[in-house]
């Protein structure tokens, strides 16, 4: 009797247990999601505080900057700070110098990284793995150990105070960019290459007419990386450039900062900083996916 009773109810009990567990899982999942949101939100707010402070400061008067308790949101938004910058420093000139440096750096990086990356990914030659390893070791070579000889070298050939010491080396390859291109090219199926060879393509044609057109994501990624690098770089302009009219925005801002040492004109300085960061932020949000993809290739496949 009891046996039949148990067998009759067993599926019901199991079902009840399952429903119960399901409900438990659901609550647990909700708590988990809630926790995630709250934590991420607090973190995001903390990370945005400096940006908020930058924007807020850039719209203040000098008096508001130097007041305690601090002014969170300026009473009157001083948009003129942004215009004043153009009078106070040769801002337009700095920006155009930065554009030239970044453009040169991007072109040079793309040329060298794609060509060399193709060589390492697709052509077999003796010592290839060894040379590739040598290339990767240069990643841990600090700039600091080569900067003095670089300076002497460019001084000797009369390149100081020009953009050449910054742009020309880009045409000789950067290990990180070469690595990105190589990883990408290795992922392109060999059959494509074989088919092209049968059709009579030579290596150069395969590179330029098959591989390059297929490489838009990696070209964009390297271009963005290179842009960030050359746009933001301070050290090389600091070492190589002397006349103010050749300064990029990074060095120009440094000049602006030290020109008013002690009594820094923070509102206009922040306005300058925002305008100089704007291209980076816009680029980042428009190509976020590509950019992150580039990071992924380096991080996971190594």
């Amino acid at each position, binding site marked *: 009797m009891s046996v039949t009773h148990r067998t009759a109810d067993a599926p019901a009990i199991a079902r009840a247990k399952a429903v119960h567990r399901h409900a438990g899982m659901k609550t647990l999942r909700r708590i988990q999601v809630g926790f995630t*949101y709250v934590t991420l939100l607090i973190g995001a707010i903390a990370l945005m505080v400096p940006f908020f402070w930058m924007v807020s400061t850039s719209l203040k008067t000098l008096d508001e900057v130097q007041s305690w308790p601090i002014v969170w949101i300026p009473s009157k938004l001083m948009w003129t700070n942004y215009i004043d910058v153009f009078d106070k420093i040769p801002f337009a000139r700095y920006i155009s110098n930065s554009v030239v440096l970044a453009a040169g750096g991007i072109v040079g990086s793309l040329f060298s990284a794609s060509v060399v990356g193709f060589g390492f990914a697709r052509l077999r030659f003796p010592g290839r793995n060894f040379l590739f390893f040598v290339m990767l070791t240069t990643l841990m070579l600090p700039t600091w150990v080569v900067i003095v*000889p670089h300076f002497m070298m460019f001084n000797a050939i009369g390149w100081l105070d020009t953009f050449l010491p910054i742009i020309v080396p880009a045409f000789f390859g950067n290990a990180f960019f070469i690595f990105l291109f190589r990883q990408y090219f290795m992922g392109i199926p060999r059959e494509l290459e074989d088919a092209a060879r049968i059709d009579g393509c030579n290596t150069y044609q395969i590179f330029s007419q098959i591989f390059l057109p297929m490489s838009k994501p990696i070209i964009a990624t390297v271009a963005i990386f290179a842009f960030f690098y050359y746009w933001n770089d301070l050290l090389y302009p600091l070492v190589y450039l002397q006349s103010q009219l050749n300064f990029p925005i990074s060095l120009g801002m440094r000049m602006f900062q030290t020109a008013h040492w002690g009594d820094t004109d923070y509102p206009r300085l922040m306005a300058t900083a925002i305008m100089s*960061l704007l291209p980076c932020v816009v680029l980042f949000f428009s190509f976020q996916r590509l950019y992150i993809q580039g990071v992924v290739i380096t991080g996971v496949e190594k």
Partner: protein
Amino acid sequence: MVKRMSKTARREAIEGFIFIMPWALGYLLFRLGPLLASLYLSVTNYDGSSTPQYVGLDNYQYLFAQDPRFVDSLRSTFQFVAGFLPLSLVIGLAIAVLMNQKVRGIMMFRGLYYLPSVTTGVAVALLWSFVFNKQFGILNAILDFFGIEKVGWLVDEDWVMVSFVLMALWGVGGTMIVYLAGLQAIPTELGESATIDGANSAQRFFYITLPMLTPTIFFNLVTGLIGAFQVFENAYIMTGGGPNYHTYFFGLNIYFTAFRTLQFGYASTIAWILFVIIASLTIFVMTTSRRWVYYASEK
């Protein structure tokens, strides 16, 4: 047949060398050459205009025995690396694990967290110098809200390194995104089958996720190490090495020695010491990695 094969192979090899030529030339011209040149300069006195004067190991002797600035650089740099690197590795991973969940709006969070790591350079250093401003900075204003007294973030010897670590952690999104990529490459079946076997989420994390993630941790460790040893810009803009040489990182020391006081020889000596430190630590991490880095696809 054999002859024809070797002919195409030879042709491919020649083409290979042609394709890697830009890098090979660049390596000799901008890497190996300068590296050896600076090794030579490191045993000379050279002011940039006269000819370098060979002084044997005098520079190294001065550096280790007498130069107080070398001690400052050593302390500043190691303090920064020791403070920043472990925190960045742990916090980056924690955020990445949160970000790896499939919840609504996660893409926006990823963007926001990653953004600070793409905004770098002078603009950001200037921004932080005002965030950290003792009298009028926002950080002290927030602390004031909780009744905490003003901190001299950039002017107090005891706090300045904390400030540099904090600021560097602002860019933790860079580490996070690499972790995230690593997390997403882990096959979900592993976690699922472990759940069926009765593993709870902590067990899944420590016995599956973490071991599968060791290559990514390794990558973040090595790149973080190499980067953290070369800080320059932020200190140059925000403190100039102060207060009292407490942020006199190697980069700053080498820059000032070479381009302010024009001691190109001695600057090369310091640079070589930095290079030896970075190289030996990297090699050390790489050799130990065989013991703790796990490659699922090991061939």
